[in-house]
């Protein structure tokens, strides 16, 4: 059938979808009566819907001002928008009594349709292509979609070469994450097609209890097994204006099995009063007050004696957690192919008021070398009642376990991470009795990953507030979460020497724990690539760490291995000063010879290059 005979068009972005649409909408021919189209352009898709669904009426929403690609000078899609609107009117003229044209911006029109209590059986989202607009159109449209209705999101693969914020895919993914559990995926290719699951249907098979292999744990263990306990540690220094909201977001968790320690870290503002007001009446909360600011890492280390949970999140007092934060993290911890040191999820960025999300959030990169995708079979793990089967499938498709040899910053910051308490204790730098004026994630993420690996969850589970006082006040971080300030980057790089020191001082313990991995882990916590390691260790603080611990290194690894590992990292007089310390003042001839000849070879190599 030719749906477009006699019409006037300049572009055809529609015809190649028709086969798919006919297939997916066949059973709606008699029932679909209301269609909503966001982005109509010359009316081609509207013509199809009107003719394929003979009983339908269509609401067409378009600004008829064009989106960026239509008005950009020199764009291949540049169009005279007034002409486009005329063609739309003309093309739909034969169906005028079934068309409701709403000229205007979708963010204005869609809420108006909602106010009119409209419901649609089919919604086609093909409006502005920025991530934020796609997200907004889809999200507002979702509330206008009837149960069992179908939504088609166009151009999923469009603009993959453009920044994430300027192409639809990021917006669609964020939208799908938001409605996880409420939809069934019918198709995902150039277009995403989903069906809205009626509320009654989602609850079929859902239980109120934790299950293993489909059985209630009460029935399996008679109460011997209880839910995993999560410990939230809120570390607050003078965030009185934000910390209340942070606490509220923890109280709202749909996972009730947690404790929360709120540490008022030497605040001088009204924090104490705000905290007291917000934790009131909830016995899961405890407040601890430190007389002086201990730094975030200092407070985190200090708190480790006080947490009872098997899993710990250090919550920045200006962040908020989404209601499903704990559920999703715990479900992933319980279902990974292998245990990891911590899980890290996406963050959505918020403006200072916390009221609006900037739709551009940085997504974690899952497709890394040797990353292991997915979770174990749903039947073979502890299943949380607050994670629906479709949400589990979503987590399965959007989780990756990253092997510990991957270096660099791979995670979202701060509150986005949930650690295994036993791994934090294993790598507890000190007991927190002294201040450490640095971030907890800067230390713990790097070293926990280097020792135990980590997993990424590509789903936003917390909100990260951008305001003038935090380290990353430089704007929305589209290009990299850790873009941060130069000052921060330097400071956190300097702190890696603390990690090296910690491992080297504890070499007797870590040698056993890590086996052959000890030296690779030492190199990894530097966060430097292999070719930069010598420069890293040339720093006098690294030399000092090795020199002070040289006798112990020698006794743990034996003379030969000790000399080899020192020379693998240090050269010249620095290397020999460490060797000398290790061998009690006198370097054995063989090692001295090796060290000198190594330097000589390096010298020749440099000369040749010149």
């Amino acid at each position, binding site marked *: 059938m030719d749906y477009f005979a006699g019409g006037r068009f300049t572009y055809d972005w529609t015809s190649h979808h028709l086969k798919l649409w006919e297939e997916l909408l066949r059973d709606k021919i008699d029932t679909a009566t209301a269609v909503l189209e966001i982005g109509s352009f010359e009316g081609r898709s509207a013509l199809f819907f009107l003719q394929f669904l003979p009983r339908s009426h269509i609401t067409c929403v378009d600004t008829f001002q064009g989106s960026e690609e239509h008005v950009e000078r020199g764009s291949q899609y540049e169009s005279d928008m007034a002409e486009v609107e005329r063609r739309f009117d003309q093309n739909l003229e034969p169906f005028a009594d079934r068309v409701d044209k709403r000229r205007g911006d979708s963010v204005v029109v869609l809420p108006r349709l909602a106010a009119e209590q409209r419901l649609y059986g089919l919604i086609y989202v093909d409006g502005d292509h920025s991530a934020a607009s796609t997200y907004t159109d889809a999200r507002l449209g979702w509330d206008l979609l009837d149960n069992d209705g179908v939504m088609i999101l166009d151009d999923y693969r469009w603009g993959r070469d453009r920044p994430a914020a300027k192409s639809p895919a990021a917006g669609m993914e964020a939208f799908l994450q938001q409605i996880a559990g409420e939809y069934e995926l019918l198709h995902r290719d150039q277009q995403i097609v989903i069906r809205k699951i009626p509320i009654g249907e989602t609850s079929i098979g859902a239980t109120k209890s934790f299950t*293993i*292999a*489909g*059985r209630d744990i009460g*029935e*399996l*263990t*008679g109460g*011997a*097994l*209880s*839910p*995993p*306990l999560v410990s939230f540690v809120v570390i607050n220094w003078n965030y009185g204006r934000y910390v209340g909201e942070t606490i509220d977001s923890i109280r709202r968790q749909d996972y009730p099995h947690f404790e929360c320690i709120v540490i008022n870290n030497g605040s001088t503002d009204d924090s104490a009063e705000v905290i007291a007001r917000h934790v009131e009446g909830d016995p899961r909360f405890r407040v601890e007050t430190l007389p002086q600011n201990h730094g975030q890492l200092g407070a985190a280390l200090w708190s480790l004696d006080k947490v009872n949970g*098997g899993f710990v999140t250090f919550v920045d007092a200006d962040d908020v957690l989404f209601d499903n934060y704990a559920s999703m993290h715990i479900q992933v*911890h*319980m*279902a*990974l*192919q*292998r*245990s990891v040191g911590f899980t890290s999820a996406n963050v959505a960025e918020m403006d200072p008021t916390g009221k609006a999300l900037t739709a551009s959030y940085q997504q974690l990169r899952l497709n890394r070398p040797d990353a292991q995708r997915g979770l*174990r*079979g749903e*039947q*073979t*793990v*502890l299943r949380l009642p607050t994670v629906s089967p479709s949400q589990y499938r979503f987590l399965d498709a959007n989780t990756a376990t990253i092997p*510990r040899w991957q270096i660099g910053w791979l995670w979202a910051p701060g509150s986005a991470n949930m650690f*295994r308490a*036993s*791994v934090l*204790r*294993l790598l507890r730098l000190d007991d927190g009795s002294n201040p450490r004026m640095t971030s907890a994630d800067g230390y713990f993420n790097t070293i926990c990953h280097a*020792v*135990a*690996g980590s997993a990424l969850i590509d789903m936003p589970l917390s909100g990260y507030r951008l305001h003038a006082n935090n380290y990353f006040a430089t704007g929305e971080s589209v290009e990299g979460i850790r873009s941060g300030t130069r000052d921060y980057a330097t400071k956190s790089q300097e702190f890696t020497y603390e990690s090296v020191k910690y491992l080297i001082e504890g070499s007797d313990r870590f040698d*056993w*724990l*890590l*086996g052959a*991995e000890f030296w690779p882990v030492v190199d990894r916590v530097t966060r430097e690539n292999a070719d930069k390691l010598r420069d890293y260790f040339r720093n006098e603080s690294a030399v000092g760490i090795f020199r002070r611990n040289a006798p112990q290194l020698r006794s743990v690894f034996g003379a030969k291995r000790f000399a080899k590992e020192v020379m693998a990292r240090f050269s010249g007089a620095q290397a020999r000063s460490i060797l000398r310390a290790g061998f009690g003042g006198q370097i054995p001839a063989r090692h001295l010879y090796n060290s000198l000849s190594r330097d000589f070879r390096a010298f020749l190599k440099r000369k040749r290059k010149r």
Partner: protein
Amino acid sequence: MTAPPKVSFVIINYNYGQYVAQAISSVLSQTYGDFECLVVDNASTDNSRDVIARFEYTDPRLSFEHLDSNLHQMGAFLRIFDRLAGELVCIVDADDFLFSNFAAFHAQLHCDCPTIAATSSGVLETDHAGRPLSSGFAWFLHRKTAGKSFDPSQSKSDHMFLGRRERDLLWRQSTVIEPHELGWHWSPGTANMYKRHYLVRCKPSRAVVSNAATDNYFMPFVHALAGSACIEIPLSAYRIHGSNSHGAQLSMPDLRTFSKAAHERSRARRGAIVRELASRAQDFVASHGRTFWTLMDAPSVPDGVPLNEYFNDPAIQDILNDHFDEILAACGEAETRKALSARMGRKGYKQFLALQGQRKSRSD
């Protein structure tokens, strides 16, 4: 149709008064009907006896044994071994507990896969209060280099201890591991169910092993004799307790979260397998022929010790030395030379023989 196999649970308790009641209750809650449960108290000095006493006269399937001194797990097990009537045996650590579907899944797989000597299922590692810390024991989950998926078409059993869907799940999640695939493939202790016949076969005849953990000795041994199967579904809980910083840590892949001392102890004790095989070499050669030497390799592989190093270990050589006549009688001089040279190296074997000669002349 044969009767369903009877399962014997043995709960061996030493000073786990705060946990042992949960272990006993978890056995009594099994959905699988045909079992007996023997609770052995290893001369506890805490309130264990009182806790256990509360179960007396509550269930005819329960019986009790109170030892006067601590024989450790293996010693206690050997003490009561002859009293067990079950075709299948599960030794439950008193600080662990089973899920109510544990025996049904294990018994079903033993019936569906009749040749294997033992089954092992997934565990949830939990803290002292039974709150899960991970979804499994690292060695069980992450060493997926051995075994083949269970092939249901091989099953001729009519027994159905599970609903159809659960049986399908069991089949989907089961891996059968051949005897020659050596290594540690299993969950610890409680999660394993043996065929009693194979325990009888490798029951240690000497008191030297009495302080060993039963799984450490029996699992590699019975597996090498007849193979085993793993069920990748958590069917019991494994409690991590005590001071959580060292010693008792939950397992992590590629990290040695157990202590160095414990590791060396278990490695040394596993030498008991070599002793048992060597001292009864003729018996095992009669049943296993040339694979006798593969059996001899079984204890070294779980620790990743190279064969060359293992068989040159003085402790192992002492054992071989003690039973060398028996080995020669079983395998003959030529084959013994070939097998041991392959493991010790030609030079190592010569040294071993020389040392042997010295000892002989000393004892003459």
